[in-house]
């Protein structure tokens, strides 16, 4: 992952079509166009897994169905704990055959319609509920030396709790970290960087103008800032965190894509 940062490779979020889409074929086409564009630019496409508990199709099945090219350095799949054991293994095996190696392992958002892994599914005996930690251990055990696994860090949750969880995630085999979106310097992220100097950290940049959505995404109230401008915030993040990579969430492919070409200098 460190060479992604050295080579200034952006991580670009690409949202898969939702299950309840009324124009699925069209949505698949949009997905495919975005994905191919990210491949062409040499960036890394990051495909989410039922983000916010909204039922969507899996990145792996779309890549397979549409026969999209996989450049191993340029694809990352998010994988959460809301799957059946069979689905989980299907996804992991498909990643393996397709040559997808970067996985972001998260506990994830549930919903009424999503199944949840049980501790016994992943051979965990010491917890009541499967979290990213158990999933990491499972993948490292069952699929040794196959994947590069990353985890999420939420600086808006109580620090002590979040850092303690990070320690367990690292012990379970996480080798890179992606933070929740930052819109300014964050002291908790600073302390994370201090604590894990050897681990690549990617900060998330919120590319939508809608800050209220950001509050919804992180779970805590982010003060509204009427002046919020995603592109200048992105530039600021590069200055504040020069040693970090950047993950672009909700990037506007029509309006913003061409503007980011020269932001990482």
């Amino acid at each position, binding site marked *: 992952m460190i060479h992604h940062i050295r080579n200034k490779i952006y991580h670009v979020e690409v949202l898969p079509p939702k299950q309840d889409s*009324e124009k699925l074929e069209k949505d698949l086409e949009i997905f495919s166009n975005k994905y191919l564009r990210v491949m062409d630019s040499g960036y890394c496409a990051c495909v989410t897994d039922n983000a916010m508990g909204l039922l969507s199709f899996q990145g792996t099945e779309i890549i397979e169905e549409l026969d999209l090219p996989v450049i191993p350095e340029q694809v990352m799949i998010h994988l959460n704990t809301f799957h059946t054991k069979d689905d989980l293994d299907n996804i992991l095996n498909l990643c393996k055959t397709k040559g997808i190696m970067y996985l972001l392992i998260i506990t994830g958002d549930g919903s009424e319609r999503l199944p949840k892994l049980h501790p016994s599914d992943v051979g965990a005996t010491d917890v009541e509920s499967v979290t990213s930690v158990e999933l990491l251990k499972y993948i490292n055990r069952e699929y040794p030396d196959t994947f590069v696994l990353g985890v999420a860090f939420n600086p808006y949750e109580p620090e002590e709790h979040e850092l303690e969880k990070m320690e367990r995630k690292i012990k379970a085999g996480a080798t890179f970290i992606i933070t929740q979106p930052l819109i300014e310097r964050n002291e908790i992220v600073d302390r994370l960087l201090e604590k894990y100097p050897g681990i690549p950290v990617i900060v998330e940049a919120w590319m939508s103008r809608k800050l209220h959505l950001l509050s919804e995404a992180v779970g805590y109230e982010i003060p509204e800032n009427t002046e919020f401008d995603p592109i200048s915030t992105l530039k600021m993040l590069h200055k504040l965190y020069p040693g970090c990579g950047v993950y672009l969430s909700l990037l506007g492919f029509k309006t913003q894509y061409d503007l980011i070409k020269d932001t990482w200098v």
Partner: protein
Amino acid sequence: MKIVVCIKQVPATNDAKIDPETKRIIREGMKAILNPFDTYAVEEGVQLRDKFGGEVIALSMGPPKAEASLREAISVGVDRAILLSDRAFGGSDTWATSYVLAKAIEKIGDVDLVICGKQAIDGDTAQVGPGIAAHLDWLQATYVMAVEEISSSSIRVKRMHEDGYDICEMSLPAVITVVKDINIPRVPSLKGRLASNKCEIPVWKPDDINADTSKIGLNGSPTRVVKIQPPPPRHTSTKKIEGSSIECAQTLLRELKLRSIV
């Protein structure tokens, strides 16, 4: 084995808004989904079919767009679907709804088992399942948390109760309503979803099921919703309990007893 699964399309959230003028629920713009409880009914139907062979048919009464929920059922393995849609069905309460569904089940013919969800998240009554059984004069088992055995002539199920559960065996044909514990519904795959888009879904009208028009729609419904309003506002003030832990515990306990909670 021929299985019918009854499914209802419902608003995506139960966060209903009321039009202050008409006092009616604003349904426009509300996204519609397959009733979450019915996904368990669909999954159970598909699993039973996979184990014992036969056919599983999804049945829904609702507006034309309810077709989308039937397609969802097909995308996870249901063999075919039928939509009951006509203005004359509109305004049906649970009595009339279960009558229409029962007539359609008779029309399908040779059905061994009907599976319903526990309840719909909008109407919330849990009355349609037993209503169908009553109209057909079939046996019923509600709050089913497991199908333990099934043969061509009988079914053995585990029924959930407040105080535990029981095991009940009955002859077929029968109606069961299922709770969440029964299975883990599969999520549609992209392949299944694309295939379901190509299926034909027939639409049945009152004549197709030989329905007695005095028993359907508003005419056939003994209940009338006469008023819809937002729930009364929550309390205006918080009662704060402070002091030593023992004092707090005792004051709270008094409050709990006062409200017959303990």
